[in-house]
């Protein structure tokens, strides 16, 4: 057996937990971003829903007025 192979195997092992840690950090960052985006989306949706409702109500009043 190549005497260097065992040493190489030994060197690879510490990288695996580091890679896993990095992936976990990325997942956590992604999750945080999703949560942040979700909060902003709902805040935006509230504003846009109110706008739609205002416009619809105004339109209905106009239609009723033109009907009279």
């Amino acid at each position, binding site marked *: 057996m190549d005497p260097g192979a065992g040493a190489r195997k030994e060197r690879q092992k510490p990288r695996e937990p580091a890679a896993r840690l990095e992936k976990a950090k990325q997942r956590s960052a*992604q999750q945080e*971003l*999703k949560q942040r*985006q*979700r*909060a*902003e*989306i*709902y*805040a*935006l*949706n509230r*504003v*846009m*829903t109110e*706008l*739609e409702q205002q*416009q*619809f109500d*105004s*339109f209905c009043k*106009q*239609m009723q007025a*033109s009907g009279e």
Partner: protein
Amino acid sequence: PFFVNRGGLPVDEPTWERMWRHVGRIHPEGDRVAQRIRGAADLPKIPIPSVPVFQPSTPIPERLEAVQRYIRELQYNHTGTQFFEIKKSRPLTGLMDLAKEMTKEALPIKCLEAVILGIYLTNNMTTLDRFPISFKSHFSGNYFRHIVLGVNFGGRYGALGISRREELMYKAPVFRTLSELIFDFEEAYRRCWHTLKKVKLGHCVSHDPHSVEQIEWKRSILDLDKLSREDFRKELERHARDMRLKIGKGTGPPSPTKDRKKDVSSPQRGQASPHRRNSRGDRRPSGEKKPADSKAMPDLNGYQIRV
């Protein structure tokens, strides 16, 4: 314009920026909306709604109410960007995976997403038939498209869905015929000054969430401009009968019509379908702009009543 997020979640930067640019263009306060919200530290925390779970003894109508409450809690998406991309030709299993993602991510949705979600949330209700109902309506020179999930329980028809307009979504399963349900939608359209132009009825959707079947979205295409009232009703009832008999692809005899899958636009059946205008190129979401006709209604700085 109508934007779709095609890159999954979290939303990628180009799509995110496009969303805010669009809002800045259409809201009277312009970019101030984005300035107030983006990066704000005090945004309300929106809880993720719980997917309804039922006791075996819970009656179906009650379950449907709970499913509709859940859909409503996600809210109608008024942002101008659809967050979940739905390819209608995907196998059911793929669409159900997407529905599961919708429940996990819990974001505002539009009508097509609500139909997929409705299917997902009612798959375990094996005595409930579900079938898509698509509408094409006209208002002030423009055409609008909408879709709900028709349901049939014990011979009573209803619908699940989401819309900007309250009357164009949930219908309790109380309608004795499919015609009554559709006429109710037609009247609801009239009340918001839309003229219903076409109704497309799909076939019953499988309850198997792992099915590789595609949803049949338009088994019957009914053009209201070309059908008398009575023929419209007859065709609706024909479709209802086919669903009851579970007429599927190559299974069992179809209803006695020469060519069922084509447009039914006149009482004379068997002709080619010249009215099938809703081909691939025409499949755009609600609010598509067509050249205005002369019957423009008074509108509020171009406001369109979208559904």
